[in-house]
């Protein structure tokens, strides 16, 4: 018998709907004030510090964290609603979403108390930005191949090596990174990596921007040369990062941001075909909406499991696999359907501009946060095949 995969029909509780209204009202004000254009995902100024602070002031960062760290002790499902409304509106969340989703929870679990008291409230106020330092030039899917060394020295470690594809490193205040503290053992290839909190913008770190095929600059190469990290910046167990890293994956992989990155082209297509679509457009839209709805129900279901304290690693991997494949295909399907949209559609130019960007974005969607192949390996393990 295989492990039963369950996706119970979890519903968002009433208080989430109230919150959703507040988020929509806030975003509408920001749009009216010109902070960002929801129809324009390809802007250059996605780094919006003032917007981050205003989101923080609303209490929407670190929502689930303890109050003593500046959190709100709200539910994971409430956080879910905020995330999806931000994403659907194309809000400039780049500065805060990594810290909110991943880095903060890692610190809560593994950082010493004085560091938590220092950093977490600043995340909650939307003041600081985090990056994730996992990948290296020869270590992506195969994380155990990471070579960047942390060598023990007086009162801390010296770091030497290069991280790559580090999103937001150029604006980040901190990075949570894994470095090699000892060699893997024969019995355990996963041994020897340690998680560290790295303060950016210090001597010994050089951040080199890497252009992306969308024309944007989002990720970087980060070079460490005898960079010093103090002892109290070790996160969790020395040599034991692998265990720590995997338990975070369900949070990183099942959220609404994993199927909504190109969503905007669907809305724009519906606008372009107008209230009386021909059969072909209607069918195309109907299928895409059915697929979207199904994925979202799966994703909410995983959020409910996380809220209940479960670790749905396989289910989360399924959501990311199906979700990212979908968001990758979406712009191409919309392009198919848009081929016959009337020249006179008032938003035709917006749709074309969006498609141009979404088609360029699409290739990365099944790579970032773990490739499709790696996810399918995790699912296969869950099915008892390996």
């Amino acid at each position, binding site marked *: *018998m*295989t492990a*039963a*995969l*369950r*996706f*119970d*029909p979890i*519903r968002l509780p009433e208080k989430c709907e109230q919150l*959703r209204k507040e988020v929509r009202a806030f975003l509408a004000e920001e749009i009216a004030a010109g902070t960002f254009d929801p129809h324009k995902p390809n802007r250059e100024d996605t780094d919006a510090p003032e917007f981050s602070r205003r989101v923080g002031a609303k209490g929407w960062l670190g929502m689930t964290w303890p109050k003593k760290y500046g959190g709100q002790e709200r539910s994971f499902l409430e956080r879910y*609603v905020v995330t*999806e*409304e931000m994403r*659907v509106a194309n809000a400039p969340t780049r500065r805060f979403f990594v810290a909110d989703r991943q880095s903060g929870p890692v610190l809560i679990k593994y950082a010493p108390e004085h560091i938590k008291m220092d950093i977490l409230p600043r995340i909650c106020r939307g003041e600081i930005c985090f990056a994730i330092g996992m990948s290296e030039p020869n270590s992506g899917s195969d994380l155990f191949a990471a070579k960047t060394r942390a060598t023990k020295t007086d009162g801390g470690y010296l770091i030497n090596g290069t991280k790559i594809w580090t999103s937001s490193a150029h604006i980040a205040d901190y990075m949570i990174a894994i470095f090699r503290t000892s060699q893997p053992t024969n019995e355990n290839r996963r041994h020897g990596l340690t998680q560290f909190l790295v303060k950016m913008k210090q001597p010994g770190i050089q951040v080199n921007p890497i252009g992306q095929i969308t024309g944007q600059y989002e990720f970087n190469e980060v070079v460490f040369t005898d960079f010093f990290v103090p002892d109290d910046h070790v996160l969790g167990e020395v040599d034991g990062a692998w265990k720590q890293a995997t338990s975070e994956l369900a949070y990183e992989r099942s959220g609404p941001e994993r199927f909504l990155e190109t969503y905007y082209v*669907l*809305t*724009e297509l*519906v*606008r372009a*075909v*107008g*209230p*009386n*679509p021909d*059969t072909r*457009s*209607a*069918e*195309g*839209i*109907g*299928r895409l*909406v*059915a*697929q*979207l*709805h*199904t*994925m*979202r*129900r*799966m994703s909410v*279901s995983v959020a409910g499991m996380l809220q209940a304290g479960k670790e749905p690693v*396989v*289910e989360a991997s*399924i959501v990311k*696999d*199906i979700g990212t494949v979908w968001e990758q295909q979406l712009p191409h399907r919309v392009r198919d359907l848009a081929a016959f949209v009337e020249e006179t559609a008032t938003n035709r130019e917006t749709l074309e501009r969006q498609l141009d960007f979404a088609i360029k974005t699409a290739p990365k969607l099944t790579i970032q946060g773990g490739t499709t*192949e790696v*996810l*399918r*390996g995790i*699912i*296969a393990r*869950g*099915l*008892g*095949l*390996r």
Partner: protein
Amino acid sequence: MAESDNIVVETAEKIFADLADPQTVNNDKKDSWQAPLWQALSEAGLPLAWVPDDLGGSGASLADGFALLNAAGRFAVAVPLAETMLAGWLLAQAKIASPEGEMTVLPASPKDRITRDADGALSGRARGVPFAKAAKHFAVLAHGKDGASIALVDASKARIETGLNVGYDHSDTVTLNKVQPVTVKPAPDGFDQTTMMLMGGVARSLQIAGALESMLDISVRYSNERVAFEKKISKFQAVQHNLARLAGESAAALAAATSAADAIANAKSFDDAVYLEAASAKIRCAEAAEKGGAIAHQVHGAIGFTLEHILHRYSLRALAWRDDFGSESHWAVELGKLIANRGADELWPLVASR
């Protein structure tokens, strides 16, 4: 297979396991398993699960009935259980008591229409009616001058041209030619053919999801047994990835179908939100049947293509169920029209409302 935590489902699963084991059923060329199975199901009150006590049924909740249909899908049960349940449910909408024995509903396609004359007689043709040949009675949704009505019809009054669907189950054409029903009553306010198609579509979605759960199950098991190139085929990464995709399709179907069932079970009316859920379930489950079924066959190789093997009991039936109560193409067009009509700015609020 998912474990049941519900007494109706537990009872049903026990009966299915005892009397409708897919391997035994598959080997039985004379269909001699059908009568004992139907009798056991009837004694347990399952075919009339959705009919209240005072109308002759066992009064199970909508939710329990939906879970039962999912279990029936996991066993690829080939007796008119879902059809009788739907018929009983339809009759109960108009407070018509259910008779004993097999029933089915008509029409079973959104495009067919049964009309009711001034004198109460029913006429019209319904294609693709599941198990019409086996049914003693039909629950019929008809339309007349004064709106929709629901009728109980004696099956012997109808002309039936038998047919088989892709899954080798009866899918018949039923013609009513001025047939006087046993009972006829007005349908409740707002109840129309779309309501019935959505309900039937969700029933089929749950069955498809169940069949996919079993296809995943037997495919994983087979991959762990079959040896090629001196390895279990489950050790090949290509096979693992195929099975991971099958798991994804199975999970998507189950999520869509159970979500739609939950929506109907808790809804006050068949509003746009229920429409989104039910239509989406039928569309997504049909897509999953196609993609998932193909993978299950791929993993099984030639053996899965034989009549002797049980795989086709699930795969072909799941493919056949796509056609009942509106195909995915039908629902996609209708859902697309609804979305377009509400306008672009209403799309996300509708999706997020679920």
